[in-house]
């Protein structure tokens, strides 16, 4: 069974985030800082922090996720690249 299939299976079981090996952190620190009752939990942004370690900064986390799942970028992000025409019109 290849890696993508395993990840898809884990997602089907509801554990895709738990199966990630990327050290992640929730994205929205700045946005959420001011509100006392904001829901912080974001299941799509899991994290592990090494025992004596620190949280991985968001930019580093995103870079690692892109590396691990290069084909999992949102379609919106990929679309401009696909639609951009070359100067020669090809």
């Amino acid at each position, binding site marked *: 069974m290849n890696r993508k299939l395993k990840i898809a299976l884990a997602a089907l079981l509801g554990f895709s985030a738990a199966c990630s090996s990327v050290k992640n952190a929730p994205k929205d620190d700045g946005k959420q800082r001011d509100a006392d009752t904001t829901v912080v939990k974001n299941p799509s942004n899991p994290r592990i922090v090494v025992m*004596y370690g620190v*949280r*991985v900064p968001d930019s580093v986390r995103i870079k690692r996720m892109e590396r691990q799942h290069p084909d999992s970028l949102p379609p919106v992000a990929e679309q401009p690249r696909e639609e951009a025409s070359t100067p020669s019109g090809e």
Partner: protein
Amino acid sequence: MSGCRLGLRKRLALNIFSDLYASTVREHRLDTLFWECTLRCNLACRHCGSDCRVDPGVADMPLADFLKVLDEEVTPHVDPADVLIIFSGGEVLVRADLEEAGAEVTRRGYPWGMVTNGMALTPERFGRLLDAGLRSVSVSLDGFEREHNYIRGNARSYDRALDAVRMVVREPSLSYDVVTCVTGAMVPQLEAFRDMLIAEGVRHWRLFSIFPMGRAKDDPTLRMTDAQFRDMLDFIRRTRREGRIDVSYACEGFLGGYEAEVRDQFYQCAAGVSVASIRVDGAISGCTSIRANYHQGNIYRDRFWDVWQNRFGPFRNREWARKGPCADCRMFRYCLGGGMHLRGDDGELLYCHYKRL
């Protein structure tokens, strides 16, 4: 023993995760590098796994020695933006050249962070560290004033740590979390402590428990009973469901039925797989919480990158841990014998989280 029970769905997912993790081990891409820059500390905490003290009798590693390893042995092989450097101790703020170290690491393109007890974190120092590129901080706060000061052995330590937390949470450019070593005395107070953290604006909180290393191993007042340990995990699970604060249990050990409910991910020990450390004496190992001698080399003798690529056998193949209480444990496939920091010098298991459940 209800906490041990694994449902079918979770068991299937754990099997998949085990396979995925095996490929991560094969790849062993370095993404976190600890630099244990000092063993000096401005406190002498009861629970210190590193046995740190004001004068540990071990000199700090010169910054130039660490930078030489970065320049000659790490940077040529990695994208620096992808490798998090963590300054650890001891207490890192006792180093007068910490800002210089941070600036040099930043200049080379590495993100860096630090763990601190907050005692020496003044607003001025905090500003200089931010200027030096500080990206992530963990502040240790082990409970309310009485519990924290008891553990830290210093009457001012709670106030200083709380001041540090207040500085950190108000800095939007930083990743941060508050780290709490939960003792038996704190278990009944966890809800009140959580509410205090939320009121202080804390959004990220990590809990861990004493493991029997360093000074902590001889102090029964720091430990939790098995029932308290389960209470703590239940508290974390409940708090995560409420969603008012991002709380998790540290990466300490396999937690059976609690897996993926008290942490975002399934248990994994990343030591020697994606995490390396350079100790104060130059020793090369996995994460700095490992106090037993699993050193794989020394920067003053060996080439760091060669060690990272070709040694670390005990970290990457844990079959050797299938002995003692792990010999016939059905969970071995998932936990691989637990965290490396829970193994003594001769490989014996010091502590099993799963068996406490």
